[in-house]
């Protein structure tokens, strides 16, 4: 039994992954899968409808799950279809997250009015949207006034931030519903067909009216009214779902439906049909969805896709793969496996060290392989090295730290590597999840960062340095925990942990130093100065100095084992500061993500590490493991 355990746990993990990574297509008479794979251009990148649905839901409510008022769970794509084509229905879905008590009060809500005590439907918000606008205007006015007076605009308080955020969500939702059909139109396809039939007469009437000649006033008015509606859609439509015209040399020139309609109107009735083919097709899908006729919907999807295949074939391959990738949720399932591995490894310190230890090791390996696949997939989708923004840095730090853990566990076989691996892997994926709530995580790179060479060298090296410094800190955390609270830290384990921490600090020193200096060289290449004392550069420098300090303190005999552990724990604080703290300062060239909700967690983390350091070094603390 014990002998088979490691293998059976691994098999269990593999079976789990086989089941969850390839979910069956959603049960529906509609070809939801086909629609979810259709490409749109958004934030500078061609992506599938599926990604739009999921990232929008994440932004609005912090999760992808959504239910209709009857309590049935909807696929993200179903929610998107309702928002695009049945806004009246979608207005009843509770997808706007509001947690700030004063914002709740602004709408006259109590938490119990919302699903999960925090999610509200557009219909619930609507009566008080004017009030929301007014609050947002007040904030904007105060900031404008400050700017005019030559002052820095005052920092927004938590209420103001919540107001501005909710307002941006409402605007996003409104813009989404103006993407493909006019939100007020009951049958947009019918409207388009009517418009097309009357277009030539309408244009003639308008020309005549301009020339002051007799004309058909009704025809002129109908065309003008339609043009006004198209103008509204052109201005507000969020999705650029309409491919560039056949002759357009710029293959990135995707437009929203309104823009394409205005362009098409200039070509007369015949040209209009031709140039607005995609718009009319999306309108047809809209009618089929609104009337819930799957056959027509499915035929439309089937018919539309081949029209893109010739020109955008290779990009469709990516958007298809991205849709699959979204559904597989590899990082979520990796999290589950890391937790399992962590628990197994902790148990291995109590019973069956050999069998459970090996089982945990294999499970960590499986989770690591899964995240490796996920990161490689993202790299292929983006055509970039692994780290391009804060989100991907969290993925990569976890990946690198767990890789080191696997190496440690291979050598030491004492469960420490697996425990640390499970812990770090899980923690970094959780951090990544919260970072993903800001929107699409596959972002375009600013011109100044647009250099795959430096992203691949400087950023990867620095991030590896972060990963190793964190790992050293987590190993020290295990040492202090086991030493103070349990009797399991014997002489051999203590020696092994000390060696691990030392080795990992050496590793961290190499990578953080080389990474930091490479960053300097990059700066020299792009801005003409090797070192500019930019906050993020300083953060990286502090990590280098700290690792160097640990090594010299140890070589000089200034610290013994517990001191080494305390220093390594402080490394956690240093790295967390460099990773997140400097972004919160909001200055400098690297301030690409200002996050304030994270501030609380950063402070909590720092306090917890300080407490552990106190525990490790305070003379009065009684260590239950006497050998440590």
């Amino acid at each position: 039994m014990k002998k088979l355990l490691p293998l059976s746990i691994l098999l269990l993990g593999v079976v789990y992954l086989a089941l969850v990574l390839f979910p069956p297509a959603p049960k529906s008479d509609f070809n939801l899968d086909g629609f979810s794979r259709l490409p749109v251009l958004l934030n500078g990148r061609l992506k599938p409808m599926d990604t739009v649905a999921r990232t929008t839901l994440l932004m609005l409510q912090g999760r992808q799950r959504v239910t209709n008022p009857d309590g049935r769970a909807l696929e993200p794509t179903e929610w998107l279809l309702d928002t695009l084509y049945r806004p009246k229905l979608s207005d009843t879905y509770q997808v706007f997250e509001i947690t700030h008590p004063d914002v709740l009060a602004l709408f006259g809500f109590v938490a119990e009015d919302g699903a999960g005590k925090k999610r509200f439907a557009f219909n619930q918000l609507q009566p008080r949207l004017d009030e929301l606008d007014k609050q947002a205007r007040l904030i904007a006015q105060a900031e404008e006034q400050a700017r005019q007076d030559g002052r820095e605009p005052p920092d927004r308080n938590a209420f103001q931030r919540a107001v501005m955020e909710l307002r941006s969500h409402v605007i996003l939702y409104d813009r989404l519903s103006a993407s493909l059909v006019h939100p007020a139109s009951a049958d947009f396809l019918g409207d388009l067909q009517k418009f097309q039939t009357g277009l030539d007469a309408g244009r003639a009437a308008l020309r005549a009216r301009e020339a002051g000649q007799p004309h058909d006033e009704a025809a002129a008015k109908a065309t003008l009214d339609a043009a006004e509606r198209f103008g509204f859609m052109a201005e507000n439509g969020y999705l650029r779902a309409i491919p560039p015209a056949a002759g357009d040399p710029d293959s990135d020139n995707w437009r929203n439906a309104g823009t394409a309609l205005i362009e098409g109107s200039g070509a007369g009735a015949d040209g209009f049909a031709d140039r607005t083919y995609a718009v009319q097709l999306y309108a047809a899908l809209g009618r089929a969805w609104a009337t819930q006729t799957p056959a027509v919907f499915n035929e439309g999807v089937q018919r539309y896709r081949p029209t893109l295949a010739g020109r955008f074939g290779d990009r469709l391959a990516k958007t298809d793969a991205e849709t699959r990738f979204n559904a597989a949720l590899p990082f979520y399932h990796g999290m589950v496996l890391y937790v399992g591995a962590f628990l197994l490894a902790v148990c291995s310190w109590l019973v069956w060290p050999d069998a459970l230890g090996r089982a945990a090791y294999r499970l960590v390996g499986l989770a690591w392989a899964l995240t490796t696949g996920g990161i490689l997939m993202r790299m292929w989708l983006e055509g970039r090295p692994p780290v391009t923004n804060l989100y991907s840095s969290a993925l990569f730090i976890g990946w690198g730290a767990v890789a080191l853990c696997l190496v440690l566990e291979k050598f030491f076989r004492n469960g420490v590597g697996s425990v640390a691996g499970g812990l770090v892997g899980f923690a970094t994926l959780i951090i990544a999840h919260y970072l993903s709530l800001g929107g699409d995580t596959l972002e375009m790179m600013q011109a100044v960062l647009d250099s795959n060479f430096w992203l691949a060298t400087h950023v990867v090296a620095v991030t590896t340095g972060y990963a190793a410094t964190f790992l050293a800190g987590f190993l020290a955390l295990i040492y202090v925990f086991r030493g103070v609270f349990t009797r399991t830290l014997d002489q051999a384990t203590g020696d092994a942990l000390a060696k691990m921490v030392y080795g990992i600090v050496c590793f961290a020193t190499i990578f953080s130093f080389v990474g930091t200096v490479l960053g300097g060289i990059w700066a020299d290449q792009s801005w003409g100065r090797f070192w500019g004392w930019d906050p993020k550069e300083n953060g990286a420098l502090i990590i280098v100095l700290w690792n160097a300090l640990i090594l010299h303190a140890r070589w000089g005999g200034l610290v013994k084992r517990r001191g080494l552990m305390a220093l390594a724990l402080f490394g956690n604080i240093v790295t967390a500061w460099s990773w997140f703290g400097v972004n919160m300062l909001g200055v400098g060239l690297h301030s690409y993500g200002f996050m304030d909700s994270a501030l609380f967690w950063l402070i909590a983390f720092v306090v917890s590490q300080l407490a552990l350091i106190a525990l490790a070094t305070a003379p009065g603390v009684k260590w239950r493991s006497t050998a440590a």
Partner: protein
Amino acid sequence: MSDLWNAIVKFFTSLRLTVVLLALGIVLVFVATIAQVRVGVWGVHQHFFHTFFARWEMGGVLVPVFPGGYFIGGLLLLNLIFSHIYRLKFAWKKLGIQLAHAGVILLLVGELFAGLLQEDFHMSLNEGETRSYAESFRDHELAIVDTTSPDHDEVVAIPEALLARARGGEIATAGKLPFHVVVKEYLPNAGLGMRDASAATPAPATAGLGQTIVAVPQSVKSEGNSPAALVELIGAGGPLGTWLVSAQISPDSPAPILRAAQSFDHDGRRWRIELRLRRDYQPFAVTLLKVTHDIYPGTTIPKNFSSRVRVRANDGREDREALIYMNNPLRYRGLTFYQFQMDAANHNSVLQVVRNPGWTLPYVSCALVALGLVIQFGLSLSRFVGRRQTAVSAQP
């Protein structure tokens, strides 16, 4: 004596000193990062790093509160050099450590050199425009230009520092000019205003714009000062006049009245006098051919800034085009041209021009340290793995 020397050696080779300096360095960098929100990156340079004692502003006064960048860096350098000489006796076993520390020494020395020798200029060009000089970001100069010849100007430029020193007296021009230059007043930062025409006292300037405009002293800032001066020129036959010169009197000024050049005739030659950003003339000319600024579709994220330029050497030996864009500067005759700012709508591009003779040092030091650390830790790791395997195979 030798006791004292031994004590010095002991002090400077101690690892304790290294650890203390590293800790001080961490505190300095951390505080400077926080302070940057308040005083900006230039202020941080001045008050924390390029100084022996870091200064903190208390009630409007800068008070030294902490060892500064030169102090910590300098001691660290001594610490490293002493350790190299006295402690880290050369041995193949220690090759890694030696290389790594040599690399760090080189890095520190390189930064010192860069701080002392690096010069920054900028070159602002409109499409089609050609320039053979770059301008300083901060320093000014008094230029007295002989514009008589139709095909070239002859310039005598007097650095701002000399104006400040000569305040109230004459500047030696070594006979380069047919008149004496007397600095009657120098203001390191001044605004301009219209002179009150009904004032009883006569205008301090007797020629040029200074008859209608006056300079008003303003407090000196760490960046972005606009100096002004009253300069009297005295020829062989007596004074020619006193001019008000100011950095704000320039062809780029937003106020039309300040755009006119201040010119005068003397001895049959035509002269111009101006206070302008210090110019660094080059033996070549740069022409801006085209600026490009792309954004990602449907966003405001800049995708690309680039300037296509033509570089022509005065000696006619070189004449080529180059594309300067983010992460791709042009290196030419000891200067490096970077894409700095761009106003694509007005077809204008600003290049940053840097002269840094020590720019290769960080590359070398990075390679040395990386190599050294890999050797050092690689050796320890392979020893460790060897022992571990022996230990594992020795287990029953």
